[in-house]
């Protein structure tokens, strides 16, 4: 699958992408996105290119500067058993070419290090530190080489992603300390919050340095919920993989399982039936709705605006009940599997979803009017937690947070897949980058989701919802991508000869968006932190994996 052409400079990369685009365009005579969109449930999508490790820094910077790509994901895999080294993967999104560029290089086993790009491309910061923790590969020149995922009591030299890691034994705890960044000066003090928070919130530690009420600096200490998901995907069957993907992050159940399933479908070159594509889109949008509504309600709760919170909770509950009626699970679990859907839904159920759209549209309108007609709400939302476009771009922020800061990125449009390849969308953006912009954007997106559901169900035909034979396999790897409620989710899967998962790497949007949170908080007051945090809507579970 990898392009064999020898890559020396950015020009070669452009040529490789254009060649591939030409191939697909030639096949169906449509715009490149659409042709493959129908064939494989993805756009031109992933273009895999092998490069030399030494060329990486130059190429990466050129891709960002010349092709306006954004770095989305870096991961590494232990391939010493068959390749004499570790493979290092950089994934760039290049929206103008509807392409996810996948650069693969090899790190020799006897020199376990790679050039860090975190100084030039801050979006790489956490990705590189995670690789250092999990595989023991040193990012040379990284400005902040502290541990990220594994906490201080994890012993040195034990790397869970290496093949020789003993997955049966408990890892002993050692003594260690974590060095927080210290901000010093007259009147500066620290506020430590978490990991267990006041309320029903996932665990994480926040260390504020502030003067009076003003936040000077916020340091995040996460990964309390690290469950080793990527490591323990290994050896699972394809169905189990989908079940695990569903349980990575509860309110991204459908998104993660679709991303995973699309990766598997691309490995096996399976095109799923149209009915399944449409229903997947319906489920993805229902999920986006309940996630956004939870968020809108949460923001209202955080400013003690009870009526808004209650109305949002009621509407969300309606969506959840609908999901339960559709699938038997309030989170739409047990529906998605490689090859389509695990089971079909009745026409009666489809009818009930359609009739829900109108009710929901009224409710959303009323909720928005209730929320934004109060001066107390406007006062707390506007100009709070501003994330500048520049920071958002540099940090590789995705999803509604990016769109509320004026960046037009949306996986559904940039790299269309499934139903979105047949149904082009407008990207909704806002420009203020504050809490108000993010909340308003979510209202718009809920309405957009209702429109998508209507379109997907409008022309739905009966037919099969599952195809493909996933029993016989040969080694293969591919990427799957989805616009989750929080932004782009990427899932890379490699399977072995027995159709079991050999390796899986997952990047949920939260992993990209968390590092941007402190930048939105500079100069804000501590009591606004919960509100800003809620408007970012970050998943700890999806981040910590």
């Amino acid at each position, binding site marked *: 699958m990898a392009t064999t052409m020898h890559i020396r400079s950015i020009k070669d990369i452009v040529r490789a992408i254009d060649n591939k685009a030409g191939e697909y365009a030639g096949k169906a005579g449509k715009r490149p996105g659409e042709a493959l969109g129908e064939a494989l449930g993805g756009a031109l999508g992933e273009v895999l290119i092998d490069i030399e490790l030494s060329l990486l820094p130059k190429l990466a910077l050129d891709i960002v500067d010349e092709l306006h790509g954004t770095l989305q994901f870096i991961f590494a895999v232990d391939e010493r058993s068959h390749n004499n080294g570790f493979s290092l993967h950089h994934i760039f999104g290049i929206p103008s070419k509807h392409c996810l560029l996948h650069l693969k290089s090899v790190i020799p086993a006897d020199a376990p290090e790679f050039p860090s790009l975190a100084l030039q491309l801050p979006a790489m910061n956490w990705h590189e530190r995670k690789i250092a923790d999990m595989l023991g590969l040193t990012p040379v020149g990284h400005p902040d080489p502290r541990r990220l995922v594994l*906490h201080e009591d994890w012993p040195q030299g034990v790397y*869970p992603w290496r093949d020789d890691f*003993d*997955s*049966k*034994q*408990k*890892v002993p705890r050692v003594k260690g300390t974590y060095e927080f960044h210290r901000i010093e000066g007259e009147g500066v003090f620290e506020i430590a919050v978490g*990991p*267990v928070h*006041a*309320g*029903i*919130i*996932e*665990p994480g530690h926040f260390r504020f340095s502030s003067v009076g009420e003003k936040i000077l600096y916020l340091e995040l200490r996460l*990964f*309390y*919920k*690290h*469950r*080793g*998901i990527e*490591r*323990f995907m290994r050896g*699972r069957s394809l*169905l*189990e993989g989908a*079940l*695990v993907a569903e*349980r*990575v*992050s*509860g*309110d991204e*159940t459908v998104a993660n399982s679709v991303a995973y399933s699309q990766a598997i479908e691309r490995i096996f070159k399976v095109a799923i039936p149209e009915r399944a594509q449409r229903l997947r889109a319906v489920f993805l949008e229902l999920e986006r709705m309940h996630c956004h509504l*939870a968020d809108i309600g949460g923001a209202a709760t955080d400013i003690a605006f009870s009526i808004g919170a*209650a109305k949002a*909770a*009621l509407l*969300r*509950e309606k969506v*959840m*009940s609908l999901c*339960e*009626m559709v699938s*038997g*699970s*309030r*989170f739409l*679990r*047990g529906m998605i599997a490689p090859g389509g859907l*695990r*089971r079909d839904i009745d026409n009666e159920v489809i009818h009930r979803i359609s009739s829900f759209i109108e009710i929901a549209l009224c409710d959303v309108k009323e909720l928005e009017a209730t929320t934004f007609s109060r001066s107390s709400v406007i006062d707390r939302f506007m100009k709070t937690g501003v994330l500048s476009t520049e920071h958002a771009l540099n940090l590789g922020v995705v999803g509604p947070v990016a769109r509320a800061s004026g960046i037009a990125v949306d996986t559904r449009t940039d790299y269309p897949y499934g139903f979105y390849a047949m149904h082009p969308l407008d990207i909704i953006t806002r420009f203020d980058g504050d809490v108000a912009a993010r909340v308003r954007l979510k209202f718009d997106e809920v309405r957009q989701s209702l429109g998508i559901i209507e379109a997907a169900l409008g022309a739905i035909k009966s037919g099969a919802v599952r195809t493909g034979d996933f029993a016989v396999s040969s080694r293969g790897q591919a990427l799957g991508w989805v616009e989750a409620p929080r932004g782009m989710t990427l899932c890379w899967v490699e399977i072995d000869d027995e159709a079991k998962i050999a390796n899986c790497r997952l990047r949920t949007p939260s992993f990209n968006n968390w590092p941007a949170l402190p930048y939105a908080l500079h100069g804000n007051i501590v009591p606004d932190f919960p509100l800003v945090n809620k408007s970012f809507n970050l*998943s*700890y*579970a999806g981040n910590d994996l």
Partner: protein
Amino acid sequence: MRRISCKRICRPKVTIKDIDAQRSSNSGRWMPVPDGLVCSGCTACVKICPTGAITLKNDRQLVFKYDACIACRACVDACAPGALVMGPGIDGATSRGALTHAFSINKLSPNLPEKPQTKDAVIPEKIKIFARSMHVREVDCGSCNACELEIAAISNPVYDAERFGIHIVASPRHADVLFVTGPVTRQMELALRKTDAATPTPKLIVAIGACACSGGLFGNTPVTGTGVDEFIGVDLYIPGCPPSPRAILRSILALRSGTI
């Protein structure tokens, strides 16, 4: 304006039946149960279950450990004779053992075995004192956040846990009850122990979700435990992945009224 009687606003004795009466489309406790057809003993379900929740005992009994069931439907899909269906699962229990049910494979009974009804249930003193009021602190020890969302949902206007005196508080010092979710990750273990120590006794510990009850899909790895009871004592196990708000409320009310 008509005066609303205070009795209608304040209903001190709301029972589980009231919650059941509220249920919308279905019971929200979906878990696999035998549906009365004859099982061929092929063990397809045993082999496919990702958490090992089903075992075949002595070739004649199918044993379901509902504390480990993640309600994934894999067993139902794999059962060729169609002897398993997703039915109303089971609510919480005070021990993991009580969440285990055995069915003879030759005559799978359509329903779960009836529990002996004790008319005058003896409610332990420890539980009795929380019968009307419970202040709850929630500790997430590595859940996928669906359990969190369902716990948060019990306070929404639909389920309204406050009318049962169930109130979420912001500090373990204020809490009578800890709701714990997740398999307990290595990096949350200390925080769980500290929160437990900071909660004054008498207290109740409630494990919510398959992860917390048994480790579920993520338990028993070098970085996760096998559920909450590996670390601290648990008074109530509520299975499900995630248990619906209704199931959570039903289980707690059942505990308080001594019916489990």
